[in-house]
C-alpha cells in the first residue's frame, strides 16, 4: 500500500519535528547530567532554565524528565517514518495517536508546574513542549488523511 502525497508530507514533517525535538532533548539531557553551566540570572527572572531543570519536579520517580523526553522523540521518529505511516497494523496507527496524546498531556502537566509551582520557564523545555504539540497536530491530521487513504485504496481494490 503506498502513501498519497498528503501522507508523505505528513510523514516527512513528523520526522523533521521529531528530530528537532530529539536534538533539543539531547541538549537538555547533557545539561542535566553535566551540571548547569548557565551562571547568570536572566533579566526577566521568569525565564530561568537552571531553576526549572534543577527543581524537585525535574525527576519522576527518580527518572529525569529530560530522559523521558529523549525516549519520546526517539519513539516518535519511528512512528512518524514513512514505513510506519504505510503500515496497516492497527496497533501502530492507534499507538501513534495515543503516544502523541500522552506527550500532549505531559506537556500540559509540565507547563502547569512551570507556571504555577516554579513561576519560571526554561526556553529549551518550551521548545520541547511546542514540538510535542506540533507532533500531536501532525499525528491527528495525518490520521484523518490515513483514513481517507485507506478508504480510497479499499475503494480501488473493491472496484478492481
Amino acid at each position, binding site marked *: 500500500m503506498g502513501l498519497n502525497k498528503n501522507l508523505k508530507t505528513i510523514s516527512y514533517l513528523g520526522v523533521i519535528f521529531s528530530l528537532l525535538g530529539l536534538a533539543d532533548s539531547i541538549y537538555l539531557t547533557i545539561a542535566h547530567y553535566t551540571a548547569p553551566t548557565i*551562571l547568570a540570572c536572566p*533579566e526577566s*527572572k521568569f525565564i530561568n532554565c537552571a531553576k526549572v531543570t534543577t527543581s524537585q519536579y525535574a525527576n519522576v520517580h527518580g527518572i529525569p524528565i529530560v530522559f523521558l523526553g529523549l525516549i519520546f522523540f526517539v519513539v516518535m521518529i519511528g512512528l512518524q517514518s514513512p514505513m510506519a505511516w504505510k503500515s496497516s497494523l492497527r496497533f501502530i496507527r492507534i499507538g501513534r495517536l495515543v503516544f502523541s496524546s500522552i506527550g500532549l498531556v505531559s506537556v500540559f502537566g509540565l507547563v502547569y508546574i512551570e507556571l504555577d509551582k516554579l*513561576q519560571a520557564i526554561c526556553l529549551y523545555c518550551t521548545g520541547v513542549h511546542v514540538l510535542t504539540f506540533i507532533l500531536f497536530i501532525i499525528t*491527528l491530521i495525518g490520521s484523518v488523511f490515513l483514513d481517507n487513504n485507506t*478508504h480510497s485504496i479499499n475503494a480501488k481494490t473493491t472496484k478492481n
Partner: protein
Amino acid sequence: MNQKTKRNLFISLGIILVVVILFIILILTSPKTSKQSTQSTNSSGTKPAPAAIVNDVTNVPETTLNAVGIGTANNKPIPIKAPNLLANNKPEVLYEGAEFCPYCATERWAMAVALSKFGTFTNLQETHSSTTDVYPNTQTLSFYKSTYTSNYITFTPIEIETNISNGNGGYTTLQTPTKTENNIINKYDATPYLPSQDAGAIPFIDFGGKYLIAGATYNPQVLQGKSHSQIASALADSKSPIAQGADGAANIIIATICKITNNQPSTACTPLIKEIEKNI
C-alpha cells in the same frame, strides 16, 4: 476527500482548537502571568556587614591571591568596542545585579575582594539570595547603600530587586537605573555583545566600556551551606574551594580593571595580574 474524511478533519481541527484554548487558559490563570500589582517597597533584606567580615573581604593577602592565580574561575571578560564609560572623570565600573539572584550573590564576593584593591568600601551590607531559586540562600554581600571611593575608578552598583517576594512570583523593586545607565545596560547586556544565552543576564558588569562580564565568574556551589563568616575567612586560605573560586575570579576582575586604568595602582596591578591580563 469524502464526507467522512471532511467530518473527521473538522473534528480534528476542533480538538486542536480546544487544546489551544486550554493552553491559553492555563497561561492566563497562572500566578506569574495574571495581573500583578508589584509592590515596590525599596526596602531590602539586608543588614550592615560586621566589621570582621568586611575586614576579611577587603584585606585578602597578596600572597593568597598570588597562590590562587585564576583558581577555578571561568567566564572570562568579553572585550567590546564601545565609547569609554566614564564617571567623575574616571573609568566607570557599572554593575547591575539583584539581591535575590544567586549568581550575583556569588560574584559580589569576588567583586568586593577585587574592588578593595583600587579603593575603599564603607557601609557594605550582608544579605542572601532567594531561598527558592537555584543555589538557594547563598550568603553574600550587597552593594545597596554602600559607598565606594577610589582615585582610579568610579564604581556604580545597581541592585534592581531585593530578595523579598512580591507575592506574584517575583521580588520587590530596590533600585532603578538612571536613563543613561538603562541605555547602556539595554545596549550591551544583549547580542551581539554577549552570546544570546547570556543576553539580559545579571550580574552584568561593564568595565569602562571596554569589557563585559555577564554571570558569575565561578561556580556558586562552593558557597552552598556556608555562613558569611565562613566564606569571608576562607578567602584567605588559598587551598579552600571558596578561595580558588572567589579569589580566582577576583584576580580576573582586578586584571580587567587594570586594563582600563593603565595598570594603576601598581599595588593592585601586580606581575601576576599583568600575566592574567594577557589572556583577557
